[in-house]
C-alpha cells in the first residue's frame, strides 16, 4: 500500500509533502535545514503572515474595550477611523468581531489540527510498527472513517448538541479528520521499520513505544510537522463551513459565524461588504499562507526541490 499512501498524502492537500526518506536527525542536517529555512522565501513569507494574524488575534481584542457582540456604534456604518472595519446591522464593531473571530479560528486550528494529528500518529505508528492483525483492524477503521464525509457526521453531531462552544467544535473536527494522516504515517513507519537503526534499537531490547518515540518519530519529525500544518488549515476550513451553516458556536463569535450573520442579515443586497469580506479574507489568507509555508518547508527538508 505504501506507494499509493505516500501519494495519497501528496494529493490530499495540495501543499502536502512527499517525504524523502532522508532522516534529518544529525545536528549538521538540523543546522543545514535552519540555514535553508532562513533563505526560503515561501517559508519566510508564509510564516510572517501567519504570525502577523496570530498577533492580531492576541492583541486585537485588547484594543477594543467592548465585547464582539455588544452594540457599540450606529448600525451599518462603513469603515471609519472609529470603527476600522465598520459596524454590523446592530452596530456591533466588525473589527472587534474579526479579532475575536481570529482567536477562535486559531483555537480551532490548533485544537482540531492537534487532536487529528495526535490520533493520526497514534494509529499510524501503531499500525505501521506492529503490522499484522493490529494493522488490519486499524487500517479498516481508518478506511471507514476516511470514506464517511466528515461534514455529514459533524452536521448530525452539531444538530444534536443543544448549546455549542468553539472547543467542542474543534474537538469533533479533530475526531474526524485524522484518517489520511494515519494512512500516510503508517506507510512511512512501514518503510522505516526495516531500517537498521530501528533493528539495532530492537536488538538492544527497547520497547515498541520507545522505538517509535525515539527512533521512528524523530526521523519523520519534519514530515509530522508539515502534516500538522495541513490539518490546521483543514480544521479551520471545516469549522468555517459548519459555522456558516449556522451549526457553529452558539456562544461567542467566529469568522464563519460572521459570514453566516452577514448573509442572514442580507449584507449583500444592502452592500455591507465590510461585514462579509474581512472574515472570509482572514481565513483565506491564513490557510493560504500555511499552505505556502508548507511548500517552503518541503523544499527545506527535501534538497531535490531546492531551486538554486
Amino acid at each position, binding site marked *: 500500500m505504501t506507494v499509493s499512501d505516500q501519494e495519497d498524502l501528496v494529493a490530499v492537500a495540495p501543499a502536502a509533502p512527499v517525504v524523502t526518506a532522508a532522516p534529518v536527525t544529525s545536528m549538521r542536517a538540523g543546522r543545514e535545514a535552519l540555514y535553508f529555512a532562513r533563505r526560503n522565501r515561501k517559508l519566510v513569507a508564509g510564516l510572517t503572515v501567519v504570525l502577523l494574524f496570530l498577533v492580531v488575534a492576541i492583541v486585537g481584542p485588547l484594543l477594543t474595550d467592548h465585547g464582539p457582540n455588544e452594540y457599540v456604534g450606529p448600525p451599518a456604518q462603513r469603515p471609519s477611523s472609529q470603527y476600522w472595519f465598520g459596524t454590523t446591522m446592530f452596530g456591533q464593531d466588525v473589527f472587534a468581531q474579526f479579532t475575536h473571530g481570529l482567536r477562535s479560528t486559531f483555537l480551532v486550528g490548533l485544537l482540531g489540527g492537534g487532536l487529528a494529528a495526535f490520533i493520526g500518529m497514534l494509529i499510524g505508528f501503531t499500525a505501521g510498527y506492529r503490522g499484522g492483525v493490529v494493522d488490519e483492524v486499524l487500517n479498516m477503521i481508518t478506511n471507514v472513517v476516511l470514506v464517511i464525509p466528515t461534514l455529514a457526521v459533524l452536521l448530525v453531531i452539531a444538530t444534536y448538541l443543544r448549546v455549542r462552544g468553539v472547543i467542542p467544535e474543534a474537538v469533533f473536527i479533530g475526531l474526524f479528520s485524522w484518517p489520511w494522516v494515519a494512512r500516510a504515517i503508517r506507510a512511512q513507519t512501514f518503510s522505516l521499520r526495516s531500517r537498521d537503526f530501528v533493528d539495532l534499537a530492537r536488538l538492544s531490547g527497547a520497547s515498541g513505544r520507545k522505538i517509535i518515540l525515539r527512533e521512528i518519530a524523530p526521523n519523520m519529525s519534519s514530515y509530522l510537522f508539515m502534516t500538522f500544518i495541513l490539518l490546521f488549515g483543514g480544521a479551520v476550513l471545516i469549522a468555517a463551513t459548519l459555522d456558516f451553516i449556522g451549526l457553529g458556536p*452558539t456562544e461567542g463569535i467566529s469568522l464563519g459565524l460572521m459570514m453566516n*450573520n452577514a448573509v442572514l442579515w442580507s449584507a449583500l443586497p*444592502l452592500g455591507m461588504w465590510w461585514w462579509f469580506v474581512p472574515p472570509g479574507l482572514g481565513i483565506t489568507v491564513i490557510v493560504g499562507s500555511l499552505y505556502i509555508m508548507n511548500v517552503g518547508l518541503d523544499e527545506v527538508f527535501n534538497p531535490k526541490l531546492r531551486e538554486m
Partner: protein
Amino acid sequence: MRNKLRLLIVLSVVSLLAACTGGGSDTPSTGQGQGTGAAPAGTYPRNETLYISGTQWGPPNSWNPITDWQYATGTEGLVYENLFLFDPLKNEYKPWLAESGDWTSKNVYELKLRPGLTWSDGKPLTSADVVFTFELGKFETVPYHNLWSWLDKAEAVDAQTVRFTFSEPLYQQWGNHLYNRPIIPKHLWEGRDEKTVATGANEKPVGSGPYLYQTHSQDRMVWVKNDKWWGKTALNLDPKPKYIVDIVNSNNNAALGLVLQGGIDLSNNFLPGIATLVKGGYQVQTYFPEPPYMLSANTAWLVMNTAKKPMSDPAFRKALAYSIDVNKIVNGVYGQIVRPANPTGLLPNWDQFIDKSQVNQLGFKYDPAQAKKLLADAGYKNTGGDSFLEGPGGAKIELNLIVPNGWTDWMESIRVIGESARAVGIKVNTQFPEYQALVDARNKGDFDLLINNEKQVSNSPWEYYDYMFRLPVQDTQSVANFGRYENNKAWDLVQQLDKTPVDDVAAMKKVTSQLQKIQLTDMPVIPLWYNGAWAQANTSVWTGWPSAKDGDSHYAPVTWRNWLELGGILTLTELKLAEAK
C-alpha cells in the same frame, strides 16, 4: 487530453439535462394544470404575474385545507374559502361565502350562504358542503374535533341555510371558526377515510376560490386565476394577476435582493434593513411610510416558568418586567419596524378592550431603579459577593433565557434582555438551543425564561387570555400557558369571556378589565413588543398596495397562512398594473 476535455463538456451537458428533467419531473408538464395552462411554453408574462414570498417555508407538499399547519399557503384563501373574512384593522367580519349569520337564540346560530356559489369544477356550493365540512370534525384527528364537545349538531335547513345547535355556545371560539374553517366540497371528499382526510396531501385541490392550482416545484408554488370565480359577480371583486408565483423562502439575501430588483412584488418576509431601503428610492413600499412601517401581527412574550423559583414570585416577575429595555430592542435590533407592546400585551386592534386607567396605574415600563427597588423590597439581596442578587433565602439566582438557534432577530433581542436583567442584578444567561430541543423543554416546563409569540391576531382577545391562563396545567403544555401559571379565578374569567357574545363588547370589556388587573399585578408573562405583519411591496409592476395613507385601501397586505382570510385576499383584488414608464 483535448478529447478528454471534450468528453467532459458532453458530461456536464448531460448532467445539466439531468437537472432539467429532474427539475421538471415533479411538476405537471406545461398546460396540464387543471386544464388552464394558458401559459405559452410555460412562461408567465410579467404583467400578468404576481410574485410573492415569505409565506411558504418549504417545498409545497400538501394542499389539504384540514392540516392548516402544512398545506401550501394559499390553499386556504385562494382555493378553499371561508364563510367570513375577519378584518383585524376594523375588527369586523366580512361576509364571504356566507351572506349573513345570526344567533337566533342563545344556542342556535343560523347561517345564510350566498346564492350562486360554485366550486371550480362547476358544481354548486351549498349548505350541504358546509355541514359536511363541520362534520368532518367528528374525526378524532381533525384539528377542530373539539368543536363537537360543545357543538351539538349542524343541519342544512335549505340549500342556502345551515343551522348550528350548540350544547354550550362558546361565542368567542365560534367567531373564530366562522372565518377559520375552509369549506370543503362534499361531492369530492365524501367517503375519504380518516387518514386521507387528516393527513392526505390532497394533490390537485378543487375549491371555490379565485385561484386554481397551476404547478409547483421545490422552490415555488404557482396559482392560476379561476376565471369562473363566483366572487366576480357576487362580490364584484376581480384579482388582477393571472398568475401568482409564491416563491419559497430562501435566505434573506435572496429575498431582499429580489424585492429590490423587482423580482418579488410582495415579500412577507422579515427583511432586516428594510427601514433604510423604504427611503432609498427602491420603489419599495410598506404599510406605514414611517416607523413602525408594519402592522402588528402578534405579541412577543417573555414566558417565565412560574413553577420554578424565583419566577414563582410575582414581585420578581414584575421586577424583571421593569428591568427590560424594550426600546433598545425595537431600535437596535429591529430598526423600528416593530413597536413596543402595551403592558397588557393586547394588539392595537384590541385597543378598545384595554382598561387605560387601570394600565396607567398598574402597568410597568422600563425603569431599572424601580426594578431594583422591587427586588430589594421582596428581599433579593446580593449576598454572594458577585455583582448579582441572591433570593430571599440566599439561594443563588442564575437563569437561562432561550430562543431557537437561527432565529436571528430573537437571538439578538435576548442578548439585550440579558444585559438589561444583569444591569439590575438578575443573572440571566442567553442560550440558543435548536428549535426542537426548545419546544421539548418548553412543553415539559424544563426551562427558566423563553420568548414566544405563537398566538396571532384574531377576532377576540379571548385567544390571548386563553393562552395566558389556560388550566389545568398538564405535564406537557403544548399550546398554551407555557409558564404553568395557576390561577383559577383568572381561568374562570377566561371561560366566562368565551361564553360572552362577540357583539356584547361592554360585557367583554368588563371581563377583560378584570383579567388585565390580574395580569398586571401578577405578571404571569411579560409582553415585550408587537412583531410586525412583515410586508414589503415593490411598486414597479403592481401598485394599489394597501397602506395607511387615506385614499389607499386599508387591509393587512399579508399572504401568510391564515392571513388571506384576515384581509390578504382583498389586497390582491385591489392591485393595479403600474403605468409603463
